[in-house]
């Protein structure tokens, strides 16, 4: 019997919501890691019982948690009282140190909010992306922007420094929430091809497993960038891909919903009739790669839905033509936000769509967006939502 497990990261802990395939009745477990910010929690496609969580705090820094039993128990990989061969204590699962050996250059600087240069400083892991094929391999997108990889189940992490070593890195600058690498998409048919996105540097692609990278931002227009052909500096909020068609990408940019049909080599706008093309998450239907979901937000000065009406917009045409999905969602006095990692799709038929709000609600649709119900209403502000379809 199929089941669904929704993994929710919040400002004050993680929660795990489970249901059978009907997706009508839900059990809520948590908080796990109460009081800590859980920027992201995601399961391995290769082993659904393997789950990784990014736990962080302004006081105590970064922790990586790992479960090997579907979230019933957790451990910090390598955090036990073991001693390495050189006699030093281990416990390096939270050690994210920028690697200068690969680039051969000093750590360097990036652009700060005021245009000056600022040293690279690790702050937190924004996004964890387990490998499609190996439960012990997981990627981490971090702030200040860089990509790390662990091949030992999160015990140790190594930077794929070719990305941060790109010649444009000194021009990367933080968005309002920091300079985070928040999107990691692995091409399922070609795992050496990885797409990442950084606020506010833009999108990048590697075709050689992370050794070399190139910006893929042609066609993006950002009013705050004087150069219309700027290679970097675009505030990409999220990119989505359907696994059956990895060359087609959908992007929610700071403003504008964009599409690429050539693996990011070029982009064109598909905002169409959206009431606002500002927003954060974007997702693709599990079974129809031309059906796309976004959640418009009024503006970058007012981070809430237009007219206080929480609406998911669905396009069945790959963009441009969008329909509002309202049934079961609050259509008055709603002033929450939905963050970039806080929407997910299950793979049942019809597929389920899930999103969490800064007001602590997690909404679910068991009919591909036609109707919605809150699974849970009063969590801390939701930072991320992921879903696992279990067989």
């Amino acid at each position, binding site marked *: 019997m199929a089941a669904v497990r929704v993994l929710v990261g919040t400002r004050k802990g993680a929660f795990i919501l489970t249901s059978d395939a009907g997706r009508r009745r839900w059990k809520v477990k948590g908080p796990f890691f109460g009081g800590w910010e859980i920027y992201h929690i995601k399961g391995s496609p290769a082993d659904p019982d393997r789950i990784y969580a990014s736990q962080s705090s302004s*006081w105590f*820094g970064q922790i990586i948690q790992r479960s090997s039993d579907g979230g019933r128990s957790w451990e910090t990989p390598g955090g036990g009282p073991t001693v390495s061969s050189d006699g030093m204590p281990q416990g390096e699962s939270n050690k994210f140190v920028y690697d200068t050996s690969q680039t051969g250059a000093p750590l360097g600087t990036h652009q700060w909010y005021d245009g000056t240069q600022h040293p690279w400083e690790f702050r937190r892991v924004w996004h964890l992306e387990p490998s499609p094929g190996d439960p012990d391999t997981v990627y981490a997108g971090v702030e200040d922007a860089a990509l790390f990889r662990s091949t030992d189940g999160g015990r140790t992490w190594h930077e794929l420094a070719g990305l941060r070593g790109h010649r444009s890195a000194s021009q990367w600058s933080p968005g309002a929430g920091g300079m985070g690498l928040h999107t990691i998409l692995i091409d399922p048919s070609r795992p050496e091809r990885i797409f990442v996105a950084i606020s506010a540097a833009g999108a990048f692609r590697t075709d050689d497993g992370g050794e070399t990278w190139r910006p893929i931002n042609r066609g993006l227009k950002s009013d705050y960038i004087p150069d219309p052909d700027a290679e970097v500096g675009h505030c990409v909020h999220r990119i989505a891909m359907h696994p059956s068609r990895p060359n087609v990408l959908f992007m929610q940019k700071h403003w504008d919903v964009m599409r690429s049909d050539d693996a990011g080599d070029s982009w064109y706008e598909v905002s169409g009739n959206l009431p606002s093309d500002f927003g954060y998450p974007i997702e693709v239907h599990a079974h129809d790669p031309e059906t796309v979901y976004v959640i418009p937000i009024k503006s970058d000065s007012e981070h809430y839905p237009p007219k206080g009406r929480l609406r998911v917009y669905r396009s069945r045409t790959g963009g441009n033509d969008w329909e509002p999905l309202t049934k079961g969602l609050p259509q008055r006095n709603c002033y929450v936000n939905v963050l970039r990692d806080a929407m997910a799709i299950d793979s049942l038929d019809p597929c389920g769509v899930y999103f969490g709000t800064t007001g602590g609600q997690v909404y679910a649709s068991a009919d591909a967006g036609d109707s919605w119900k809150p699974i849970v209403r009063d969590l801390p502000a939701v930072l991320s939502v992921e879903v696992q379809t279990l067989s």
Partner: protein
Amino acid sequence: MIRVVLPYHLRNLAGVESEVTVEVDGEVTIAAVLDALEARYPVLKGTIRDHATGRRRPFLRFFACQHDFSQDSMEVLLPAEVVFGAEPFLVVGSLAGG
């Protein structure tokens, strides 16, 4: 035997109920106490001192015997009361809230 008092979240992380004790060979400095603490509880590595710089994390402070050691060198010698276990070494999280 050195007694160390940790803030709530670090006690949870280390899986300890109250104050912990560590043994230090040689001079009892802040760094030596933290080294011993991390050796016993590796999960605490990086949570008190930054992994890359080794410096105290900005929102944490160190106290012992009614003295603030937060701005002192990591190599400063701690008082005899701490060395002999009469007083604890305190790792304190800065306050947040109203």
